[in-house]
């Protein structure tokens, strides 16, 4: 009996509890990834879903934090959070927790606040007013309210009770949107083109024909400005009169109304439609209201162009360097040292590359270019200041080790037999590289490039030094000559997050926007990385089953 017991004891493998402990390490790591992605998705996706507007009635005796709100708070529910009261009773017993409700009340112009807080215990009733409107405005953000009338330019007024009202409001809003696009086109494109031509002429003053051209440009400008002025007057001529939930009567020029919904009357399909519509707007519109409203198209575009430029720079250089190291350089101590050095450059902090980019590209190369080619514009720097080209080059320098290492690895993995086969058929060294080695290592190069792009797209610290801005007036590629403007400053998704989350005047109001941007950036980076991982896996399998 006892020997059996002993045997059982010894059969229990030694150290099993420690194995469990190590399992915990993995679980914690995976939970961290899942938790982080979960937080971003949970906060980022609901930003686009149309919320219902809730009306909270507070208990008698408790006044609303909304100015003039009586005992009611109307708005969108943001969150409920538990507020702990740290004060202990005399016997050391903790006080009961309180639940606090945060409501987005909008109407910043009327209330001067965006959010109102109320304790759960103070709430007597909760309802959803069916006929409330949610107006998205050009300025001051969202307004909640009840429309009362539309005042037309001819002085007549159509009350909200009229059966024509909904149709009229929809028509007027559409017209206003069209006019806004027209104004934008006139002011940004046409007047912008005139302005840039004027700057050029001013620089080259003294030539004979400039006076005539200046006059014609001025005439054009006057005509366009007048056109824009008329449109603006039309935008302001029709006015929507609405009452805030607190009973104030406010007016809103129809030109300032971007969109409106009746959130409490939406059906599920309508909500889903709006959800998609919001996502679309987010991806394609330009930011408004210090970047807290509107979309992030310029940031997406800036990130895209910068990453593209970086890839164009990084691939040829990285591949040439890798071919040199692997195929041409004499494999000795020196090359081994260089290889280690290049490898380690990938681990040098990105900010160091930013510092180098600022010192070398911007202040040294950029200033020299300005001195040679843009002398007439000085002291206003053209290339001697941060810009998308310098940012791309800086990131290219930062990621070139990644590409070199990946390419080298891929080339090393090309079986010796393939090379020798090619050489023995009479191919020259370059022909072998060109026709055999490079095609075989293409997936590896691609992996390196994708990893470099993922790193470049997500990097912010060096960009802050070499040309990223919170709001760029124009895109780096547009319709005005020479179409690609390498010297322009640009917007970037990562910097957008930093700027919105930290430099924004109203960071609470910017929160949804930041989470949405974060979601997009994470999605981009994760997709790129997954692609790289998949290609690598495929690559491994291909050579694992290779007959050589």
């Amino acid at each position, binding site marked *: 009996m006892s020997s059996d017991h002993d045997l059982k004891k010894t059969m229990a*493998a*030694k*150290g*099993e509890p*420690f194995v469990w*402990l*190590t399992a*915990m*390490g*993995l*679980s914690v*790591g*995976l*939970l*961290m*990834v899942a938790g*982080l992605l979960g*937080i*971003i998705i949970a906060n980022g996706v609901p930003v686009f879903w149309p919320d219902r507007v809730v009306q909270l009635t507070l208990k008698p005796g408790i006044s609303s934090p909304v100015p003039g709100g009586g005992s009611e708070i109307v708005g969108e529910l943001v969150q409920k959070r538990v507020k*702990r009261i*740290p004060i202990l009773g005399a016997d050391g017993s*903790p006080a009961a927790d309180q639940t606090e409700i945060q409501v987005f009340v909008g109407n910043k112009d009327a209330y001067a606040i965006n959010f109102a807080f109320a304790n759960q215990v103070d709430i007597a009733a909760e309802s959803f007013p069916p006929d409330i409107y949610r107006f998205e405005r050009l300025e001051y953000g969202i307004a909640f309210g009840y429309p009362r009338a539309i005042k037309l330019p001819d002085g007549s007024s159509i009350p909200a009770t009229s059966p024509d009202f909904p149709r009229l409001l929809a028509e007027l809003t559409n017209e206003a949107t069209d006019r806004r696009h027209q104004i934008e086109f006139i002011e940004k494109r046409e007047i912008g083109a005139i302005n840039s031509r004027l700057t050029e002429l001013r620089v080259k003053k003294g030539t004979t024909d400039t006076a005539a051209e200046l006059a014609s440009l001025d005439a054009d400008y006057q005509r366009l400005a007048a056109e824009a002025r008329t449109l603006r007057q039309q935008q302001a001529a029709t006015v929507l009169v609405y009452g805030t939930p607190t009973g104030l009567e406010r007016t809103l020029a129809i030109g300032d109304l971007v969109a409106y919904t009746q959130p409490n009357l939406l059906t599920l399909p309508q909500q889903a439609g709006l959800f998609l519509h919001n996502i679309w707007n987010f991806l394609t519109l330009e930011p408004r209201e210090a970047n807290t409203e509107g979309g992030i198209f310029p940031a997406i575009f800036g990130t895209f162009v910068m990453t593209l430029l970086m890839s164009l720079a990084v691939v040829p*250089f990285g591949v*040439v*360097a890798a*071919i*040199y190291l692997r195929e*041409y*350089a004499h494999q000795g101590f020196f090359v081994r040292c260089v290889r*280690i*050095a290049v*490898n*380690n*450059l990938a*681990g*040098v*902090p*990105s*900010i*160091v590359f*930013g*510092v*180098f980019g600022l*010192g070398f590209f911007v202040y040294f190369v950029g200033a020299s270019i300005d001195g040679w080619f843009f002398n007439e514009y000085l002291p206003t720097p053209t290339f001697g200041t941060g810009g998308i080209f310098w940012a791309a080059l800086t990131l290219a320098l930062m990621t*070139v080790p990644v590409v070199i290492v990946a390419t080298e690895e891929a080339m090393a993995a090309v079986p010796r037999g393939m090379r020798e086969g090619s050489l023995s058929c009479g191919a*020259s060294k*370059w*022909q072998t*590289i060109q026709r055999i080695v490079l095609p075989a290592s293409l997936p590896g190069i691609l992996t390196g490039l994708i990893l470099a792009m993922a790193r470049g797209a*997500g990097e*912010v*610290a060096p960009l*802050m*030094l070499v040309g990223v801005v919170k709001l760029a007036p124009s895109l780096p590629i547009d319709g005005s000559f020479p179409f690609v403007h390498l010297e322009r400053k640009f917007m970037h998704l990562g910097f957008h*997050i*930093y700027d919105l*989350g930290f430099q924004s005047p109203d960071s609470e109001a910017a929160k949804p926007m930041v989470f949405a941007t974060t979601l997009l950036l994470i999605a981009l*980076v*994760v997709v790129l990385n997954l692609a790289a*991982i998949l290609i690598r896996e495929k690559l491994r399998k291909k050579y694992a089953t290779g007959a050589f």
Partner: protein
Amino acid sequence: MPTPLPDHARDESRFQTAKTTLFVDRFMTVFIKFGGALVITSVLGIFVFILLQIWPLFAPARVTALKSVNLPERKFALLGMDEWGAKPFLLETNGRMLTVDADSGAVSEVEIPLGEAQGTPITAAALNKREQKIILGTADGRFVIVAPGYSSSEQNGVQSIAINPKAEPPVAIGLPGVPIVDVAYGDSGTSKLVVALQSDGEKTQLTASLFKRKRALMGRSKEEAAGSFDLTALVPGRPDKILVPGTGDSVVVLTESGSVCYLALVGEAFEVRQVFKPFEDLPEAHINAAAFIFGDVSISFASDSGANRVFSLYYPPGGSKRTFGLTHEFPPLEVSPVFLVSTLRNKAFLLGGGGDLSLRYSTTDSIRWQERMPYRVANAVISGKYHRLAVLDEENRLHFFAIHDPHADSGWKALFGKIWYEGASEPKWEWQSTGGSDDFEPKYSLVPLIFGTLKGTLYAMVFAVPIALLAALYTSQFLDPRFRSVVKPTMEIMASLPSVVLGFLAAIYVAPLIERQVPSLLLCVAGVPLVAAVIGFVWSRLPIRFRKLIPPGWEWIVFLPVLLCAGSLLWSLGPLFEAVAFVVTDPATGQKTADFRAWWPAATGASFDQRNSLVVGFMMGFAVIPIIFTIAEDALSNVPTPLITASMACGASRWQTALRVVLPTASAGIFSALMIGLGRAVGETMIVVMATGNTPIMEWNIFSGMRTLSANIAVELPEAPHHGTLYRTLFLGAMVLFLLTFAVNTVAEILRHRLRERFKTI
């Protein structure tokens, strides 16, 4: 009969390689060799470029002789210079001014309109650098304040400097008719303090006259006398020299015996605040020369024997009034000094005596430049911009020099040493690059930043290393191989998360969460591993029929829900824990508060910030864990299988094999994983910028922030003037980061290489 060869086979050239092929091959060889070497050189050139940028920080001052001008044989009372250094003046005792053009060497003469005092011999003169004015003391006991009236005009790109001296009306001071032997004044804008030393051989009197100026809304403000004070009795010994700071509220009197008497105007009377002897310990205590250093808080003294010390005003420990104390000591000048002049740009001063000139920087105790001249120096003046120097020798020759010293306040000592800054009560390492006032002195010590970097790295590693290594060990040794293709990419995804996202989450989400729930977090940190160990222990004691329910390599799946449950349970127990363990009682009201945020400062005396090292450590974990995990996992799973199977065959359990065979074999690889993780933590920028307060403090307190080298660059470089000291210092910070990570990574790389070689032989 062999078949005849086909035509093309008889072509002689068929074994010859096509010319184009050869050409392309040769071209590509050159192209790739050249291009590849170029790319690699330029990538490594980063290092050289940054080095070139920081080099001037350590360069000494460059002083070059420009021109020497012979002056007429006269007696000069004073030497002064305009801010451009183009037209110094020399004041004669008869009230005339000689100006010397620095470019042409032309000497011209100007008469100062002294009004009533015209013709009276001038017996004393002093420069007030801050006001750019001169004060003259006459033989009949009056003083006159003179503005040299420099003006600059530009014509055809050539700057010309004109001088047009204007004198204020002479004012009588102290004993009427007794010659003034030394005079000085300070002007704060609202009050002006003129101090004069009079002596006629028998009588000596030290008088201070105070003038108040009411700010008029319109036009010129009026100045009126607000009292005259006889200070003679307050000074122990015979007064020798007077210094008045720009604040106009105190006087520093040097006596012939080498004492310094610091008198302060308190209310309506002067009082002796301090009497000290700067060179008390030396055999010859007499003070030969003394001058306020820019800012008028420090005085540099030079003794007869050439010793040179700087005394600054500061609050001594426990004291409530600022007194002078020795803050800087310089190597002595070999000859007896005759003059000591300061600049208006920085804390530099020039000490001269015999043939020696020595340009010194008080803050950093450094001699910027020192040289022996072939003539005996008598006086000197430095231009307001600290770029020109004029030296008068005893043969009445004026020598011009150009000073090139753009980074006088930098150097090894300033960047890495403890520095006694003005106003501080002890030497400190300090980083403060910008300040509010004009005479603010930037402080560029990299030590707090390096400290902050190490602090952030340490907390990140403390959190990340256990998780990463445990996970790597489990994944490589125990995990069911089917899961590996999922687990590894998932962890790698973590590595690719942009750091701006991590920083943003840290600041917006994690920091407020942790701030309210520190006890919960403590419980989780302690409790989760405990739960894991207990479960493991209990599990291993269960009979085999239960144990086989979970196949080996599946433990982590069991853990996911268990950990979630245990974690959330512990998390919600936090407030209870807080109510028990972290209670602060308000001594005034007796109110008990269970709040860790209040408890921590009360219990440890250290501060509690919302954005602290704990948050940074946690968030940096996201960046560091996957890196350590991936590399360590590679090293562990590359351990040759024969070793493992042999161990197993000898009867070792999987844990024993992992611990005794796999871990030691892969230890170099694990170490290199840690090093590379360290490198990443050291250079991490955005997380630190966003999740800490970026305060350059030096304390290990986990609940306070820090400022790291990388965050410092990100915060300050966009605003730093090109090629300024701050700009170069930030480059130096980048260089330190570069070297740190490069060294760490190289060590790691070499270790990994060794390991690979070792595995090859097994």
